[in-house]
């Protein structure tokens, strides 16, 4: 026997009891204490069959292999570039992964990426001690020129992007705005100033309302409404 005490999309605090009995399985963000399942943080409940998960409402980025992120060149070393990826852990871009050119050791690396440059990269490996390697070679990976960088809640990035990019595409199209959202909570935008501001407002709204239903429609309406004002 088991009783579940929460529903899908409930917001729960640490220490709250989510279920009683042995019927349910503690997924990520929860743990079992005797015959109870407890929340392990301030989270949004997701129930997948008999697995109860807690999706954190907040949290700084922890690097994961395969993630596409935006980083800032923090230091230039002999072996490559040290890149700040908005995390407790820096990442390393080795010479061989910076460009399709062959980069000779000892050459002027600032020709490729200079201090303060922002780059769209992909995480290739993360060790147990969280040593992170990245690559700038790949589809859509590049130095980001101009535009602006904003910080977004890394836990909301999936919602901002939408399934298969559906949400972010709405914003990109409506405002003719180039946008790259990194899994690490850095997002890069480039558009006409007024449209850029509107894009940022839309993204902020998605962050605030990420846990609610009907968000895609509200964002579409918000952008249609704005465009309506233009004409």
């Amino acid at each position, binding site marked *: 026997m088991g009783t579940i005490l929460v529903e899908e999309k409930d917001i729960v605090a640490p220490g709250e009891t989510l279920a009683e009995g042995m019927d349910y399985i503690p997924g990520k963000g929860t743990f079992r204490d005797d015959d109870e399942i407890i929340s392990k943080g301030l989270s949004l409940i997701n129930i997948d069959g008999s697995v109860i998960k807690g999706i954190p409402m907040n949290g700084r980025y922890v690097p994961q292999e395969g993630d596409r992120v935006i980083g800032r060149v923090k230091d230039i070393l002999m072996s490559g570039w040290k890149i700040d990826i908005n995390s407790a852990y820096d990442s390393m871009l080795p010479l061989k992964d910076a460009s399709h050119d062959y980069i000779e050791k000892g050459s002027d690396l600032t020709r490729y990426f200079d201090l303060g440059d*922002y780059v769209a990269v992909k995480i290739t490996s993360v060790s147990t001690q969280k040593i992170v390697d990245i690559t700038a070679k790949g589809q859509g990976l590049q130095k980001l*020129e101009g535009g*602006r960088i904003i910080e977004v809640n890394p836990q909301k990035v999936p919602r901002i992007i939408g399934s298969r990019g559906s949400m972010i595409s709405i914003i990109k199209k409506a405002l003719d705005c180039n946008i790259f959202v990194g899994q690490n909570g850095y997002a890069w935008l480039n558009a006409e100033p007024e449209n850029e501001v509107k894009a940022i407002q839309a993204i902020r709204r998605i962050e605030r309302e990420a846990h609610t239903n009907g968000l895609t429609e509200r964002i579409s309406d918000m952008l249609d409404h704005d465009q309506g004002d233009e004409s």
Partner: protein
Amino acid sequence: MNQSMKNHLKESLEQDVRVDGRTRHEHRDVDVETGVISTAEGSARVTAGDAELLAGVKIESREPYPDSPDEGSIMVNVELLSMSHKDFESGRPGIESIEPSRVIDRGLRESGAIDLKSLCIEEGETVLGISIDIVPLNYDGNIYGLGGLAALAAVKDLTMPAVDDNGNIDWDEEGDLDVDLAHDPLPVTVYKIDDLLLIDPTREEEQAADARLTVTTLDDERVCSLQKGGDAPISDDEFNEMIDLAFDTTESLRDNIDAI
């Protein structure tokens, strides 16, 4: 912010578009609340957009400084709390805290707004010191302007505690001494990004700025304190423009002060 992003920011500012929808000469809506700290003799909370600051006034009784035996003192201290922004570290205050402390301090002092002789209990023996501490809780730029406003509001909120002839303070009793402000000195800082001027910057804008000029005004005519900051020098045309912009900005901010 690297150069290519700064250029992009500049394009935006040239079109008079800022991220929060303001124009370059527009100040955030300011809210000033006084009497917000139960343990302070005077206090104020200032919010502007996401920025939030507190200012608290404390009185102390001490011996006068040798060169001013019949005068009390004012001291302003800004502490950029590490809780308020990731850029601020704990430990010894750096120039980012010290410069606004001294600028706001001079604004209050040089204006002669407070008669320091009125803070004398017994010449050569006991005087009162007024300390104004300003702290951001959530930092989003413009410490000079918002901090100066908070300090002024807190001083206007000041109720002196009872002080006996020996200088002993009774914190629970209200005193007879009234600290009247002869003027309301208000600092406004005009920031320069390239050749564009803006006021009330957010943290991001403040960091992109090349220079700034803090102008502390007494009313709509007189200046009592100036401080130029930032790396880049300013031309005399820019200087004139900045002074005028500072006076324009103060006009609406004074409404917040007059309401106290």
